[in-house]
């Protein structure tokens, strides 16, 4: 397809504010009479709090009130609560104190006395599964969305059978399989079996989840940090305990979420409820350390994979078992996504998946960029290299022979995909990276340094459907594209909105993206997670634009005669095909829409749109021509976003240091909507992947349950001096057939392909040694090169 706007770079409308510092994040707002609240949080991993005595705190000058767990909205027992008297991880908020200043609030917190009963706790799933092991909560030690909390203890014999070096595999919570697994293993010429650990990880969003709330009658005005705009709105309203129409949700800028701010999260309700209680605007600033604990974390895996290959490297059989460190709540379904991802990325002829999500007294686990898919990429990709080495196959070739295509099937149910071009991505990357020549450098020595080469691939399901689009043409002819897409730094709020402008033939400088504040009238959109925005909200904007196209033509026919088939849109005018004199500007059409009313100006609207979109249309009604619609386009399978990364490193055998010499990342994301934005996804994803594979820590002292990784410094995120300043990228750019402009998402696999490539390169530099663990850090490399044992056991989770 030839486009005017799609595929072209643009200046994101919010960029000036960001680079000049004028962008206002939740913490930057001040309102008259604003006061502050601070949180009393748990210092022990599992406890019951009682006999709270607030007298001394409340009598302090400047203290305005206390909000306790008894006063907040009830949430489902397995959800992360707003406040609790039964904390299940260190740092969990128990109560909040409001005061004229934060310092007074903190001083008051120190004057609150309470009884605290320490309860059994665990930070290790396998410890909890062992007979007699501790449960992270009273309800049991296993839970997940769709799995009621229960107590599961495996048999001692499960542990004995596995031995110290392999994952025990007791009875799972979920299991699926397809194909004849036994037969597939029996036909395999090479079988490998490895147990592995992928560490959990704090989201560590740069902007902590600070929030400011105040009330105007029944209306709550909330400034919050959110990666999505419309999607969390109903959930936030429900946390506050109000009807959605009474919540003004302002989240124009967001300093990172990575999945932790995708939907509604409970803590935003604290300043809102406090404000209601004390009748003052309340700012709740969340500190860096607090964010590390309440800002959720990626689940860790203790896993085991058995893979069988034929002599060409085709994966015939895969048997995967995942024990997920689920945190103390419902957590997230990473473990299930991991199994699905393996089935698609390597298309084994037969596969079995088993897994169990086990509760621990560590932060709430939620989705983090590539939840499940990226952990499994890191675990499996080095094993693929091992198979290639054993079978004497090129690492590129083994990936290509297993790569999915448009006809590949996905997951236990073996459903279909909309498109999959991993093989093409591998070819494109191999060419850019000069694979054949680079491959020769593997193992090359330069003093104490050795070169390692790696490829990584990853997948994420990257699109959804059924959401709404909304736009308005005003009487100046300006196109206002209303989007519920949040501002998580990808500029997808604008790149997807441009589809509406493309369909209507607008010149971009006559378009305004309306976003960031629910009071502007924003449509119901899916959240900015799951790499879905490009696919999902190009479709909603397409739907709204199609509605507008029809209405424009109808109004032209109404005014100028003829039928809608006689008209076309051209240069922001509606024009009769045969009679050049029959023409209206969009500005004129907008006025006619207002005059005609009805659905033209939004006085009526389709019943099928979401209540949020209905309210938005109601808000805009009568102010121009309204285009609104639900995305009813077909979607027949998983929208497969795939990515391939190529990496060369030089690793110093004496110090464990490694340096990335080159990185190439290739995205299979369908039509490229915004090249610059995509390049930032590929490179930014790689930076985060480098952290996932080689730096970031999430360490718990098992004896006391204490977190050792609080703050950005101790979490050891890579800095810009740790990552290459130049990285290269490309896109396959083959259209997805189920998107009107051919686009699909990409945000997540571009992290996983980079982290997996790095792990493969480290392994390659070390002659093929598998650590079977993320992150791989210096002490591990030094111990290996020194011929020493590692200091952790193979399944130990906190490896210091």
């Amino acid at each position, binding site marked *: 397809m030839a486009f005017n706007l799609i595929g072209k770079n643009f200046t994101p409308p919010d960029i000036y504010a960001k680079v000049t510092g004028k962008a206002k994040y939740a913490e930057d707002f001040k309102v008259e009479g604003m006061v502050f609240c601070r949180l009393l949080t748990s210092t022990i991993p599992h406890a019951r709090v009682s006999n709270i005595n607030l007298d001394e705190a409340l009598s302090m000058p400047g203290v305005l009130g206390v909000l306790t767990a008894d006063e907040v909205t009830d949430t489902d027992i397995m959800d992360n609560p707003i406040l609790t008297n039964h904390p299940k991880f260190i740092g969990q908020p128990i109560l909040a104190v409001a005061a004229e200043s934060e310092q007074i609030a903190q001083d008051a917190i120190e004057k609150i006395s309470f009884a605290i009963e320490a309860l059994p706790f665990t930070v290790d799933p396998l410890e909890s599964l062992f007979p007699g092991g501790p449960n992270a909560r009273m309800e049991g030690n296993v839970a997940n969305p769709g799995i009621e909390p229960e107590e599961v203890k495996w048999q001692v014999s499960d542990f004995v059978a596995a031995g110290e070096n392999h994952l025990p595999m007791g009875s799972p919570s979920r299991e699926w399989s397809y194909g004849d697994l036994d037969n597939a293993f029996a036909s395999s010429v090479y079988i490998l079996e490895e147990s592995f650990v992928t560490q959990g990880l704090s989201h560590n969003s740069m902007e902590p989840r600070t929030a400011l709330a105040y009330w105007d009658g029944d209306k709550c005005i909330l400034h919050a940090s959110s990666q999505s705009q419309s999607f969390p709105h109903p959930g936030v309203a429900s946390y506050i305990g109000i009807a959605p129409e009474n919540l003004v949700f302002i989240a124009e800028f967001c300093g990172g979420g990575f999945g932790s701010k995708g939907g509604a999260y409970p803590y935003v309700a604290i300043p809102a409820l406090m404000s209601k209680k004390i009748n003052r605007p309340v700012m709740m600033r969340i500190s860096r350390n*607090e964010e590390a604990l309440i800002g959720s974390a990626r689940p860790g895996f203790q896993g085991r994979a058995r893979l069988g290959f034929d002599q060409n490297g085709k994966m015939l059989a895969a048997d995967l078992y995942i024990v997920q460190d689920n945190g103390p709540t419902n957590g997230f379904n990473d473990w299930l996504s991991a199994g699905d991802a393996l089935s698609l990325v390597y298309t084994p002829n037969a596969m079995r998946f088993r897994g169990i999500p086990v509760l621990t007294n560590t932060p709430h686990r939620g989705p983090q960029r590539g939840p499940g898919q990226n952990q499994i990429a890191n675990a499996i990709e080095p094993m693929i290299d091992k198979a290639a080495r054993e079978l004497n196959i090129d690492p590129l070739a083994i990936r290509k022979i297993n790569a999915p295509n448009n006809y590949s099937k996905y997951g236990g149910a073996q459903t279909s995909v909309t498109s999959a071009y991993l093989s093409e991505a591998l070819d494109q990357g191999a060419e850019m990276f000069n694979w054949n020549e680079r491959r020769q450098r593997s193992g090359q020595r330069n003093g104490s340094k050795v070169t390692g080469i790696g490829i990584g691939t990853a997948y994420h399901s990257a699109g959804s459907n059924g959401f709404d689009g909304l736009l308005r043409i005003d009487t100046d002819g300006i196109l206002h594209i209303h989007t519920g897409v949040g501002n998580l730094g990808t500029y997808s709020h604008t790149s997807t909105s441009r589809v509406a402008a493309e369909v209507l033939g607008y010149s971009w400088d006559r378009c305004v993206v309306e976003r960031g504040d629910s009071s502007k009238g924003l449509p119901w959109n899916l959240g900015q997670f799951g790499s879905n925005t490009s696919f999902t909200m190009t479709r909603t904007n397409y739907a709204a634009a199609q509605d507008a196209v029809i209405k424009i033509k109808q109004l032209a026919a109404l005014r100028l005669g003829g039928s809608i088939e006689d008209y076309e849109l051209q240069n922001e005018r509606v024009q009769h095909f045969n009679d050049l004199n029959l023409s209206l500007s969009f500005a004129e059409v907008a006025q006619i829409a207002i005059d005609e009313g009805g659905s033209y100006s939004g006085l009526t609207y389709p019943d099928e749109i979401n209540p949020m979109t209905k309210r938005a249309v109601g808000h805009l009604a009568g102010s121009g021509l309204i285009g609104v619609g639900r995305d009813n386009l077909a979607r027949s399978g998983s929208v497969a976003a795939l990515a391939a990364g190529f990496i060369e490193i030089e690793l110093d055998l004496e110090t464990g240091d490694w340096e990335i010499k080159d990185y190439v990342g290739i995205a299979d994301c369908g039509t490229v909507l915004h090249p610059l934005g995509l390049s930032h996804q590929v490179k930014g994803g790689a930076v985060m992947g480098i952290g996932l594979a080689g730096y970031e820590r999430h360490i718990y002292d098992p004896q006391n349950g204490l977190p050792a990784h609080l703050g950005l410094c101790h979490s050891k995120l890579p800095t810009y001096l740790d990552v290459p300043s130049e990285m290269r990228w490309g896109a396959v750019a083959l259209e997805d057939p189920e998107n009107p402009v051919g686009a699909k998402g990409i945000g997540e696999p571009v992290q996983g392909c980079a982290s997996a490539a790095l792990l493969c390169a480290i392994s390659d530099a070390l002659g093929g040694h598998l650590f079977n663990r993320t992150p791989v850090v210096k002490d591990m490399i030094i111990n290996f090169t020194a011929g020493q044992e590692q200091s952790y056991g193979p399944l130990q989770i906190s490896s210091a």
Partner: protein
Amino acid sequence: MAKDMMPAFELYQPDSLDNALELLSRFGDRSWIVAGGHDSFDWFKDRTKYAQYVIDLNNVNELKGINETSEGIEIGAMTSLTEIELNDVIRQRYSLLSDAVSRVASPQIRHIGTIGGNLNQDARCWYYRYGVDCYRAGGNSCYADTPEGQNREHCLWGASRCVAVSPSDVAPAMVVLEATMVIASANGLREVPAEDYFIGPNIDIERMTVIEPGEVLVSIKIPNTWANAMFYFEKVADRNTWDFPLVNISRAMFIENGVVSRIRMAAGAVECIPRRLSVVEQVVAGSELNEETAELASQAAIRGATPLNFNHFKIPLLQNLVKRALRA
């Protein structure tokens, strides 16, 4: 655990050393010196350690700057790490020091952090910083030295109830350069060699240096002894910046007629004080530098190392760094 909210304190900003000393003696152990504040404010924000009276030395100009003297150079304690890193005299004659300083923390921290603050910084054991009631914090246990203690960053030598290490990248370089610490109090000045300035938990578990309440580190004198020597500094940390050392090594050496005539070496982050590698010096002095000497020296360097559960990687790492220092 971290509170992330400083308590109120009274701030004093004296403009002379005498005023500072007067304030320190007036407020005694209720006072706290602040230089760049990178260590101090961390404690204050956590509310685990703080003081009622904070004496900020940033206006005391006599504590700032780098001066050449007939005996060498003298660096004021309030000189920023960046200034030391960029100073021409230091880069020409004592590049060990500028190299070591250039690997401290991050560029931003070096702009504000001072040499006095760096040499007087407190232990970085994460348990201690977390605010647990360990020996160093006046309690009666060590959380790091337990069967499951997360002690990857901790010591190989000198454990004495506490297993924290000296976190400074600069301190070992000061030991190698035979620096002298000039300390002032209301009673006058005293000078202490760098090697005696840092103290382990066996001497005082609640302090890292000989500085007593009421005392100020005024300057560091670096003698001509090692000027223009052959220097080697290397630091291994998890990251290239914004990270404390896993192990670092400092070496000064002169070679005459193909053999090592004088050598001084020290390692950081392996003991609670900079660890002078005297045995290595003995092995190497008078020898040619070759693989054999390096190997012998690296074996000598690790004798007596007693690893904890997660830090035995520091043994081969130190060995490798000794070898590298003797190859270069």
